[in-house]
């Protein structure tokens, strides 16, 4: 049975387990209908020109995994940011694992989507925010139809979260192949602040397909700092859809670190609904083997005096493929926009490929918009210079690559994350840097 048919019939089974009276049921119904019409995206669509889902849709995924209780903290410790105090929302095979999590309702809400969807207390919030920024796209609609579990985070007005929140999704491989669809809703109210770390990790070599949707609302003068760490097994694929709606004077930044996974697609979308907004999108991609990472970004400037800054660096080895598809859209009234988009890539091996498509669509005249894209190699002269000063070639290459990625790391505000990423980069490049960064 094709995955699409399987999903459609699973939806009927899913309907039996949920509360049909719930107001979001209509949204789910609409979404499944939309998915039925549109199906999975193919390479014929401009946005999917360079990424084919064929290889990952072949698997016979199970949609409703059993609850798994045997996972202990020590199994997952190395995948968490454990050296600082954080809130943790942990899911095992898409199901909330209370014994591993640390949630809160004190001052701020860091808890579960399922309870937010079902408890009457949250009804007005769900009504106001749920599925409000996610557009009608087939994969997002598929997630909406099955939306049930995920992280629900709400930072009330004027509250600065005193510690970062981690959203961790693990898959155990109990099933031969598993498809999970986490649905996150994050609301940062006016003048609030939060830092969030998100990770998807498979614990075994069994196939996993994650189709995640995160809706984020950033209120006036609020501050969101989001880190996505993607370093999964070669059998796991991730389609991450993140939609961020920003109000005036707010800051939002998303750092995406893609170091592994069979196929990773990041759909990252920013919508600026007020003036004086700052949006930052940064990413480092270092992959090898036959891995495929696709960054598909959109920044929609709808109001005047806003800024956006995109900086994506990629290092591609062996037969890996990288895609960057960035779009900056400037509306007619969004005068004085300052948008910058940069995509730099290094190809290490002959069979590595990069497809880059940085796009600008501009309808306002008084703007400063630019983009740059480069593809090249490490500077031979710089390598020679270092070698002539006694630095072995391998280290010299690592240093240069580290320097290449460093721009992106500069803006990481959580030192522990910076350290972990630095180590990860060193590991990826295959060298001990010998200094702490």
């Amino acid at each position: 049975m094709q995955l699409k048919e399987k999903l459609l019939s699973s939806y009927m089974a899913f309907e039996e387990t949920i509360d049909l009276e719930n107001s979001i049921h209509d949204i789910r119904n609409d979404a499944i209908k939309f998915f039925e019409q549109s199906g999975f995206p193919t390479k014929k669509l401009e946005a999917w020109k360079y990424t084919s889902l064929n290889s990952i849709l072949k698997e016979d995924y199970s949609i409703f995994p059993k609850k798994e209780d045997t996972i202990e903290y020590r199994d997952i410790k190395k995948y968490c940011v454990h050296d600082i105090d954080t809130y943790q929302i942990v899911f095992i095979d898409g199901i909330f694992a209370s014994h591993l999590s640390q949630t809160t309702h004190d001052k701020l809400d860091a808890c579960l989507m399922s309870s937010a969807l079902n408890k009457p207390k949250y009804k007005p919030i769900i009504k106001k925010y749920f599925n409000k920024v996610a557009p009608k796209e087939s994969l997002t609609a598929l997630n909406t139809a099955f939306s049930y579990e995920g992280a629900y985070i709400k930072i009330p007005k004027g509250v600065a979260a005193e510690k970062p929140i981690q959203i961790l999704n693990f898959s155990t491989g109990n099933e031969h192949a598993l498809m999970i669809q986490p649905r996150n809703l994050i609301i940062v109210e006016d003048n609030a602040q939060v830092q969030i770390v998100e990770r998807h990790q498979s614990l075994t070599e069994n196939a996993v397909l994650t189709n995640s949707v995160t809706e984020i609302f950033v209120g006036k003068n609020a501050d969101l700092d989001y880190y996505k760490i993607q370093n999964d097994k070669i059998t796991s694929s991730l389609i991450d859809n993140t939609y961020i709606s920003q109000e005036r004077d707010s800051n939002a930044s998303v750092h995406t670190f893609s170091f592994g996974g069979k196929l990773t697609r990041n759909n990252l979308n920013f919508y600026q609904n007020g003036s004086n907004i700052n949006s930052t999108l940064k990413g480092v991609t270092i992959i090898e083997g036959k891995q495929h990472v696709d960054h598909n970004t959109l920044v929609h400037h709808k109001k005047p005096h806003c800024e956006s800054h995109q900086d994506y660096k990629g290092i591609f080895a062996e037969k890996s493929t990288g895609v960057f598809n960035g779009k900056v859209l400037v509306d007619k009234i969004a005068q004085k926009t300052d948008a910058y988009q940069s995509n730099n890539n290094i190809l290490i091996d002959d069979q590595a490929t990069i497809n880059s498509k940085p796009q600008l669509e501009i309808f306002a005249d008084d703007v400063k918009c630019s983009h740059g894209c480069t593809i090249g190699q490490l500077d031979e002269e710089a390598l020679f210079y270092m070698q002539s000063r006694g630095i072995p070639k391998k280290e010299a290459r690592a240093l240069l690559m580290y320097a290449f990625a460093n721009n992106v790391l500069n803006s990481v505000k959580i030192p522990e994350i910076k350290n972990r990423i630095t180590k990860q980069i060193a590991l990826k490049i295959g060298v001990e840097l010998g200094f702490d960064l």
Partner: protein
Amino acid sequence: MPYTEHELEQDLKNKEYEYGFYTDIESDTLPPGLNEDIVIAISKKKEEPDWMTAWRLEAYRHWKTMAEPNWANIGYEKPDYQNISYYSAPNKKPKYESLDEVDPELLDTFNKLGISLDEQKKLAGVAVDVVMDSVSVATTFKKTLAEKGIIFCSISEAIQNHPELVKKYIGSVVPPKDNFFAALNSAVFSDGSFCYIPKGVRCPMELSTYFRINQAGTGQFERTLVIAEESSYVSYLEGCTAPMRDENQLHAAVVELVALDNAEIKYSTVQNWFPGDKEGKGGVFNFVTKRGLCEKNAKISWTQVETGSAVTWKYPSCILKGDNSIGEFYSIALTNNFQQADTGTKMVHLGNNTKSTIISKGISAGRSQNSYRGLVKVSPRAKNARNFSQCDSLLMGNKCGAHTFPYIEVSNKNAQIEHEATTSKIGEDQIFYCNQRGIDTEKAIALIVNGFSKEVLNKLPMEFAVEAQKLLEISLEGSVG
């Protein structure tokens, strides 16, 4: 002595015969619509050999299976392909009797461009009372060219006289099945230019269709084929700066360039088709497929200045097949009022050490939409490929749009690719500075636009560059609010 229309006709007939241009005065316009019979009829009217008819038919059969592309960032009412007449005899009858009947706006433009009175008449379609100057000019040209062994004639004539060359090269760069408009063109192309430069010959003058078109009448479906043999050089000019009014709404031309080992082709275009009136009504649709093939050490350079057409859909491309080959693309696309342009280039790097440069300047004013769409592709076997792309857009007013869609596909680690794009407007301080020094705003804008376009204008042949510069000024007139 009064010079009658009939005499002119006779004169032209003789002249054209004398200089080898193909005319078919007897032929009528074919009925509108497109089917295999029409394709065969066109081929027959042109007395083409069987292989050509078969080639057209194959293209037509494939075209039938294709759908009109709609991925470009343009919106227009699709033409009804069954409602177009695909062949009409060249119009020998002058449209007007004297210059007084011609649209004064058009004449105004002519004067600004500094076009001579005789030429003005020719361009506007006024009966000309002197036998055309350019005919004699063309004759001298022809002589020089013939001495060098250069063939420069219409494609129909080439099919008759040099079938071996045409057969070998036609469709070799733009296959008939390449895309919707190329297939359509291959099936029904009416005429066009053919140019062949023999081995080791450096063409002594700029070849221009301008001279030829005066006689043959421009076709709706033009087909151009330029072949530069080993170590030869040619500079080819297409179009002219004067506004071209044309009743044909749809133009689907195909241009093929073949640069063999060590050859160099420089292809310059100035396009100024009727862009429609200020409300955006009418205007020409220009859907062109232009592509060049570079063999070893060869170089192809495209330069274009686009100011006309209601809708432009055009991507002059280079296939860098041979090692060390070079592709260049310099473009200015200016859109005003309701014009839409989706233009750019494709640089396909296949050989080792291939280089390409892309400089694209887009200027949008009024309510126009101007897009750059370009592809830089480095195949896995193309070592040391080098590309530099720069796309700058200038916006005037907040009702227009400027868009950039670069596609960069690299599969070789030795490639070095740079792309940058900027979008900006004319700074108020720049205008203020000019005003302060006694230059009025309109002139100041012309000055700044010229500066912005300089890099590309410099690549045009001298006379062309001067005209193109003026053309930019005129096209922007009244766009300053």
